[in-house]
C-alpha cells in the first residue's frame, strides 16, 4: 500500500503554481531544515483578492503536495476567505495525509497566512489577532 493517496501523489508529481513572484505583495516563510520542511509563499493582491500565488518548498512529498493544494485553494479568494484556510482543510482537500506527516509537513496554510499578514502589514494595517496557525 503506498504511503500517499492518489490525490497527494497527483499534486506531488504535478505541483501547481511553483515559483516566486517578483515584487510580491506579501511573502510568508515557515519551517526549518531541522524538521525537514521549509516553505516560502508569495502572493499578489488585487482589490483585496489573491490574484496570484506562488511558492517554493523544500521538503517531502507531503510538503510539496500541501503547497500545491494551498496555492490552488487560495487563488482568487479574498484575503478574509484565504485566512480561513487551515491545515485541517488542506488535509481534507488532499483526501488525507499520513498521520506522521500531518503536523510536520502541513505548513502551507501557515505560510499563506504569514504572506497575507506580511501584505497587511505593508499596507499599514495591523494583522489583527490572527496568529498564523500553530507553531
Amino acid at each position: 500500500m503506498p504511503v500517499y493517496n492518489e490525490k497527494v501523489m497527483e499534486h506531488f508529481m504535478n505541483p501547481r503554481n511553483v515559483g516566486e513572484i517578483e515584487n510580491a505583495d506579501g511573502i510568508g516563510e515557515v519551517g526549518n531544515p531541522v524538521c525537514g520542511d521549509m516553505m516560502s509563499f508569495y502572493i499578489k493582491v488585487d482589490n483585496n483578492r489573491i490574484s496570484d500565488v506562488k511558492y517554493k518548498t523544500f521538503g517531502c512529498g507531503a510538503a510539496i503536495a500541501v503547497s500545491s493544494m494551498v496555492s490552488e485553494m487560495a487563488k482568487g479568494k479574498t484575503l478574509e476567505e484565504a485566512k480561513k484556510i487551515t491545515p485541517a482543510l488542506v488535509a481534507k482537500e488532499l483526501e488525507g495525509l499520513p498521520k506522521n506527516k500531518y503536523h510536520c509537513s502541513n505548513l502551507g496554510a501557515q505560510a499563506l497566512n504569514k504572506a497575507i499578514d506580511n501584505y497587511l502589514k505593508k499596507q499599514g494595517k495591523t494583522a489583527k489577532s490572527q496568529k498564523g496557525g500553530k507553531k
Partner: protein
Amino acid sequence: MGEVYLDHVATTPVLPEVLEAMLPYFKDAYGNVQSLHSWGDKAREAVEEARGKVADLIGGVAEEIIFTASGTESNNFAVKGLAMAHQARGKHIVVSAIEHFSVLHSAKTLEKWGFELSEVPVDKYGLVDPKDVARSLRKDTILVSIMHANSEVGTIEPIKEIARVVKQSGAIFHTDAVASAGSIPINVKGLGVDALSLAANQFYGPKGVGALWLKKGVRIIPFLDGGVQEEGRRAGTENVPAIAGLGKAAELAKAEMGARAKRFSALRDKLIAGLPSRIEHVLVTGHPTKRLPGNASFCVEFIEGEAMLMLLNSQGIAVSSGSACTSRALKASHVLIAMGIPHEIAQGSLLFSFGLDNTGEDVDYVLETMPPIVDRLRQMSPLYAKFLKDKSRGGK
C-alpha cells in the same frame, strides 16, 4: 521504464537455491526440533547443519551460534542480555554514536534500568577512533558494542583495533555485523570480539531470522524464557525453514563472497564517481575506501530525500534515504548528524545499495534519471534559490 532495485540494505531477495533449501521444512520435514521422533530428527538435522554453515561464515564454532528472529533481536539480546548477566562487575556500557537503533535504543533502555551509558563519537567519515573507545572505558565498564560496518554510509569500523583496547579493560565486546556479515570476510577470532550479530535478509536469506554468535564461556541472560531451545538461551519453537535458509545463504555467501564483492564494488565505484560529476553539490557520505562493497551513499544539497526517493520510484528505481521525512520519527539520520553533516544537508540523503541482479546499465540508468529529478526539485527549493542569490548554504 526500468525496474531497478537498489535498496539491498533494506533487504536482499531470497536466492532460488535458498528458497529450495527452505521448502522441505514447510511441507515434508515439518517436525519440531525438540521432538524425539524421526520428524524431529529431520528438523534437528537441518538446524544443526545450518548452525555449522553460519559458524563457518564467521570463523566460529557451531555451538556458539544462537538463532534469533532478526538482527534486531540479536542486538537486543546481546546488549541487554550481556549487560544484565555481568552487572555485578559494573554498570557502565559504551556504544558508538552511529549504532543501529536496535543497539542504541537497547542501550538507552539499560540507562533507564540504572546502567550508565557513554557514546563514542565518529569522525566525518563515520569512523570510530579506538583511542576514543579507550578514553571512554572505566573500571566498571562491562560491555562495549560497536558496529562492524554502518549500513547507511557503508563505513567499516576498525573492530580489531577496538577489540584490542576493550580486551585490556576486561569488558565484553559485542559487534553488530548485520550490515557486513555475508558481504565481507569476518573471522570472529581474528577480530577478537566476544559476540556478533547477523541477519539472513542482508545476504540473500529470508526475513525473520538472524543469529547471535557468542563466544564459548561468555554468560548471557536469556531474553525469551520457556523451553530448552538453543541450549536454553533462546526459548521458542525453532523457525526451521528460515534457519535452513539462513544456513544456505551463509554457505553461498562464503563461497561467492570474493566474486560478489568485486562486482558490487565496481558498480558502487561507478556510481560514486558518476553522480557528483553529473550533478553539482552532491557529497559522497562515508569513508572513501573503508566501505562496504555494495554501498553508495550521498547527500544531494538543497533538496530533500523523500521527494527524490519518490520521483526515483516513479522511474522504477528503488533506493532509501536518511532524511527526516523518510523516518517515522521525523528526525534526520543520527548517523549523518554524528558525522557532522548539517541538518539541511542530511535531509538530502540518498542511499543506493547494490545486489546480485544489478548491472552497469542500472548505474547508467540512475545517472541518466537523477539529474532531471534533482533539477526539478531544486527549481522549487527555497534553499537553492537562496544559495543562487547569496551563496549561503544554511537554513533561514
